[in-house]
């Protein structure tokens, strides 16, 4: 039973990956729609980021003093000015750990 579920879940996931690439012809989307698609990273990733920072494991809002909030703010500021991926992630983690372990 579990094996069948895994296969089905895998098949559906593969369909989500392959569907648009294989089935959609380039010309189906007009220029305006393409412009909207430009926003895809800007709508999907914040949908992962915000709950990851603002909510705890149980889906409740964290306190304003939560180290995750300051870790994320540090990463945003460092990333904005450095334009460096590794620095962004590292500074966020470093400030988060500093607040957890030192304070």
């Amino acid at each position, binding site marked *: 039973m579990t094996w069948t579920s*895994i296969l089905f879940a895998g098949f559906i996931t593969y369909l989500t990956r392959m569907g648009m690439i294989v089935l*959609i012809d*380039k010309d189906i989307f007009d220029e305006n729609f393409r412009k909207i698609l430009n926003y895809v*990273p*800007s709508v999907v990733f*914040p949908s992962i980021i915000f709950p990851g920072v603002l909510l705890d494991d149980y889906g409740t809002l964290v306190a304003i003093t939560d180290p*995750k909030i300051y870790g994320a703010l540090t990463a945003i500021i460092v990333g904005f000015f450095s*334009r460096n991926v590794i620095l962004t*992630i590292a500074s966020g*983690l470093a400030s988060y750990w500093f607040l957890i372990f030192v304070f």
Partner: protein
Amino acid sequence: MSSKFQIFKVGFFDLAPHLLSVIPFGIIFGAIGIELGFDPIMTYATSLIIFGGASQIVFLQLLSGGASSLIAITSVGIINSRHLLYGAVLSEYLNKLSLIKKLFISYFIVDQGFAVSNMYFKKNKKQNFNYYHLLGSGITLWLCWQISTILGIYLGSIVPEALGLKFAIPLTFIAIIINELRKLDHLIVMIVSGLAATFFYNAPFKSYILISPLIGLSAAYLISKFKK
């Protein structure tokens, strides 16, 4: 003009920083699978067959909690539905490939790979063999996900929970979209989607991951109308 292998390498290097979150997450996933009572082969099979981190955790949690297969499979489908958006964006760059290549490359489409390769595609529109970048980023992530799952299965929770490495996931996505923060329209759309996701987080089947991007895209549509 870069060679196929050079482009593949760029994909590898662009993705590499994000392994900082992928590898701990993979280890955590492998350990969780065993803790939930699944055997090593089954736990690993989800990494090979489903290959979608967050959805795999939800899938095993639901099944071990006694949920029906239908609910578990539906949740996986909804969580991974964001790939449809990635595919819609990437279709512009991949539409000249043969069907076999499209079918092959599709398996390797993941969040971070999509993000870095999409940036590369936008910058190098005229170049041939750009899809090797997507292969470079996707296969790198795939390989590390497979290995780290196996590490987690056999070594258990070697990543101390106190480190809170789950937090590395939002951080790598911050790093991915940081440059879009410079544009006001994108900034507004990001805040709208992020707040919507936080608000709808407890919606059934993890559907917030589908609802909030759609709300964000509606906001983007309104903004684009307003700009004209």
